[in-house]
């Protein structure tokens, strides 16, 4: 089967299973409403921290409030999109442990699609919505000398960022085929990464910034492109074109994550646990 056909099949399976889960959660309406609200609020919390900080200071790491909000909105929206589509893959460890992964393997659909749609919940819309809300707000507030290129960078940044985060989630899930109980390690790269990127790179140690630029390329989610749009310097010296690299980095991450996933599934199928 070609990769294209598999993708179509995977998306179809994702849609079908996600729809089933949405209907399942609707059987507990009260809980659904509560979780939707909670999800919206919890995401708002990290932003409240930033708001609280700005009740005490004028700027963080040389950036004004609107600029930090811009960084925050960009990464949160990207993360929210990735989480909506792929966040559930982190449950793979549990499925391996209780043996229910086997029931997915006998269905005629790609396992990744089935796992991604596993317990799909509309409440996850809370995260994207909140991120998008702050992002739009920041775009209104922030003072940018808009050029065509900068306008183009904005959607490119969010979409590439979502793919990078999604790749981290899939690679992290694949890692759980070997270390079943290590789901939390993945959280430090996904949730931790998201938290990191909500703040300006200038407040972090240079080595940390280098690390997430060259080794673990989270910086391409928003730091590099966003600082270009804002017209601010990046704390690590890099050529200007790096601001436009996110799509390329995203594709590389996705390919790598796909390879990890296949290797993980292969390992599961040869060890059975």
């Amino acid at each position: 089967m070609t990769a294209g056909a598999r993708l179509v099949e995977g998306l179809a399976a994702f849609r079908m299973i996600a729809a089933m889960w949405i209907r399942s959660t609707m059987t507990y309406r009260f809980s659904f409403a509560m979780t939707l609200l909670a999800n919206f609020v919890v995401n708002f919390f990290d932003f409240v921290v930033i708001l609280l900080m700005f009740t005490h200071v004028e700027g963080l790491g040389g950036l004004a409030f609107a600029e930090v909000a811009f960084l925050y909105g960009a990464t949160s929206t990207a993360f929210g999109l990735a989480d909506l589509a792929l966040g559930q893959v982190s449950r793979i460890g549990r499925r391996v442990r209780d043996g229910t992964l086997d029931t997915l393997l006998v269905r005629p659909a790609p396992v990744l699609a089935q796992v991604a749609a596993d317990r799909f919940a509309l409440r996850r819309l809370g995260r994207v919505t909140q991120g998008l809300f702050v992002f739009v707000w920041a775009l209104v507030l922030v003072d940018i000398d808009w050029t065509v290129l900068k306008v183009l960078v904005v959607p490119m940044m969010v979409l590439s960022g979502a793919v990078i985060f999604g790749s981290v989630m899939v690679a992290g899930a694949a890692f759980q085929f070997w270390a079943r109980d290590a789901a939390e390690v993945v959280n430090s790269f996904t949730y931790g990464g998201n938290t990191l990127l909500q703040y300006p790179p200038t407040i972090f140690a240079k080595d940390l910034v280098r690390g997430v630029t060259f080794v673990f390329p989270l910086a391409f989610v928003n730091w590099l492109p966003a600082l270009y749009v804002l017209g601010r310097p990046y704390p690590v010296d890099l050529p200007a074109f790096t601001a436009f690299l996110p799509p390329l980095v995203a594709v590389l991450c996705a390919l790598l994550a796909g390879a990890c996933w296949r290797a993980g599934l292969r390992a599961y199928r040869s060890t059975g646990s």
Partner: protein
Amino acid sequence: MDFIELDDVRKVFDVRKKKGFLRRERHEVRAVDGISFTVPRGEMVGYIGPNGAGKSTTIKMLTGILTPSGGRVRVAGIDPSRERTRLAHRIGVVFGQRTTLWWDLPLIDSYKLAHRMYRIPDARFRANLERCVELLDLADLLAVPVRQLSLGQRMRGDIAAALLHDPEVLYLDEPTIGLDVVSKAKVREFLRDLNADAGTTVLLTTHDLQDIEQLCKRVMVIDHGRLMYDGALAGLHEVGESERTLVVDLERELPALEVPGARVVKVEGPRQWLAFPASASAAPLVTEIASAYPLVDLSVREPDIEAVIAKMYTDRAELG
């Protein structure tokens, strides 16, 4: 043509055992250790053995969940581990202890999902659903959320879900585990009809030997990853040197009877138990006893397969 083919199939797991605080010892476990068999289309086969014998591992290799470490597996000409999704359209799997139904949704919703996921043509789907609903008595359950079904009802629901796409082979892993007598009977009856009418090949693993006795002409016994026996159910008795028991009620208490071809294993008042080889006929014994002793009543007890298999295991353990 043989529908399922296994040729010297092996599956080796690396198991890490904790030894002390951090030290771990690795050792190999041969879950399946060179199994070969074939199953022709339309046969119904029982696959039995104690826990950890390799039953589930075999089923997992047949369904493409696990990749064999060695040997060759073909189901309908397909290599399961390489073409898992293509094979999925042609097989049905029921895991006795894990439902694939949607817990919080009405039963019918699980079937609707199968309809779309397996891309079953509408007319086909309707016909199959109708048939399953009728034979498995599901009409009143379709609108009920799965979590409210009893274990037996859920198992029937699971079996129907595995059959909607007309699989050529159905694998059942412990299909009657935990079911009450009525549900067991219903499930067995359905499987028998399915095999007879639709010609579906059925491979079932079970702990319940009645399943095998009532359903399968052929049985395979596996232990320690090896096939111990493959053949007719009746033949299993010969291999296991099993014995049938003749229970005779006499007019009065007598010393142990002396009958050629049988030996008394127990005496209790006027009742005596005589064991004779399962392969021999009971008729000459009965004639012999009736002519020589004051016989009131008698009955023949079939051997317990469980005991037969247990005997096979102990024999093998003594040899190995």
